[in-house]
């Protein structure tokens, strides 16, 4: 399985993160997105005429939507991550995968303008981003009321992975995460999952590593 990847792309990170969390093998093929614009070159347009990355290639299968990639990885290696097999659960997962597109457009758009010289109406993108974060905060608060941690059901699903990166990187687009306690707790839970990997702008939880000042047990 080959992932056409860019280290600073939150959408590519979704797929890297998913693979790391479930232990799926992934061969990375770095794309010179910035400054080289390789994604708009002939070779990559032949794979994905939309000119976007990531692109996931597995044999004859070519995927160009990150949500589909998460579903494919989970389907192959960790079907539990697709959610429970009930109509409600399946629908809710789809709901959040679609919601993740709004996060990409708004938070990702603001991030491109603020960080990588992208074009766009920053204020409109930020307003849309804050509206989406408030919606997510309210939903996660509702889950906390029910004793839940994740967006859908009792355990983490591809819905959480799909929404996490652009939310965590909202400050890159000058959108503060300070007002959202439930989002903070959800991100912390995700960053605490075994196999979690970071990307620039999303720090690991250092406290999960052994404290160098405390002698190891049995030492």
């Amino acid at each position, binding site marked *: 399985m080959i992932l056409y990847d860019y280290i600073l792309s939150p959408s590519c990170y979704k797929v890297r993160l998913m693979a790391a969390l479930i232990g799926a093998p992934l061969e990375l093929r770095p794309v010179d997105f910035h400054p080289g614009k390789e994604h708009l070159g002939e070779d990559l347009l032949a794979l994905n005429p939309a000119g976007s990355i990531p692109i996931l290639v597995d044999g004859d299968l070519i995927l160009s939507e990150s949500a589909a990639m998460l579903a494919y990885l989970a389907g192959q290696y960790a079907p539990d991550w697709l959610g429970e097999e009930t109509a409600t659960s399946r629908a809710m997962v789809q709901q959040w995968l679609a919601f993740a597109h709004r996060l990409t457009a708004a938070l990702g758009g603001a991030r491109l303008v603020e960080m990588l010289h992208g074009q766009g109406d920053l204020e409109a993108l930020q307003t849309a981003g804050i509206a989406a974060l408030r919606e997510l905060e*309210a939903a996660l608060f509702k889950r906390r009321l029910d004793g839940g941690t994740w967006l859908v059901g009792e355990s983490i699903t591809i819905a959480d992975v799909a929404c996490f990166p652009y939310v965590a990187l909202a400050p890159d687009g000058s959108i503060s995460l300070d007002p959202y306690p439930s989002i903070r707790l959800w991100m912390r839970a995700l960053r605490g999952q075994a196999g979690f990997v970071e990307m620039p702008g999303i720090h690991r939880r250092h406290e999960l590593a052994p404290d160098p000042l405390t002698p190891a047990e049995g030492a």
Partner: protein
Amino acid sequence: MRLNASSPWIPLALSGDIPNGTVIPATLCSKPIAIWRSQSGQVNANGNRCPHRGMRLSHGFVRGETLSCIYHGWRFGQDGACQHIPAHPDVVPPASINCGPLQVAEQDGVIWVAEDQVESQPPRLDGLKPLRSLVFCAEPEAILTASGGTEVDLGVEATLAGTRICLLLQGQAPAETLCLVLVDQATSPKACAEISRALEGIRRRAEGETEKRGAA
């Protein structure tokens, strides 16, 4: 509105939003602070600025009973004093290197911080339990109007979805108000969810009101 006129204690967060081993940013009288809870459950508050090179400590991490700065790992104890400088591991830092500890109290599910040393306890919130915290892009007056409630010392009392609620309000910046929502202790989980939804409506109205005033 004159908020919190009779007590030096400022309500800044709900206990449930800061589990063991976490740190959050907050604003105390327009000054940035960090509130954190140690692994054993002790809540602490201090300035949100590492005394080394000014990094926000709310970006740091809690290890055991200490808060570490994410930049160079300087480590601070519950008294705010620096305990360890990783670049100079043999140094025993003096207590005078500290991150500006503040007095903090946890009571009735609310975390209160005081700017100066105080002897008193924070006000009691009898018969109420914490629900959730929200930030309104609105002034406290607009929240009072939008909620249809009455002004009390710490904010607003109102009835929402048939339940008594209390909004502890704290201005953080112009047109930005932190709102800690408390509900009657007997409120069922289902009613809590309903109130949470209704709060979003109050926020829309309050912010609409503020925007209108700003445009006028």
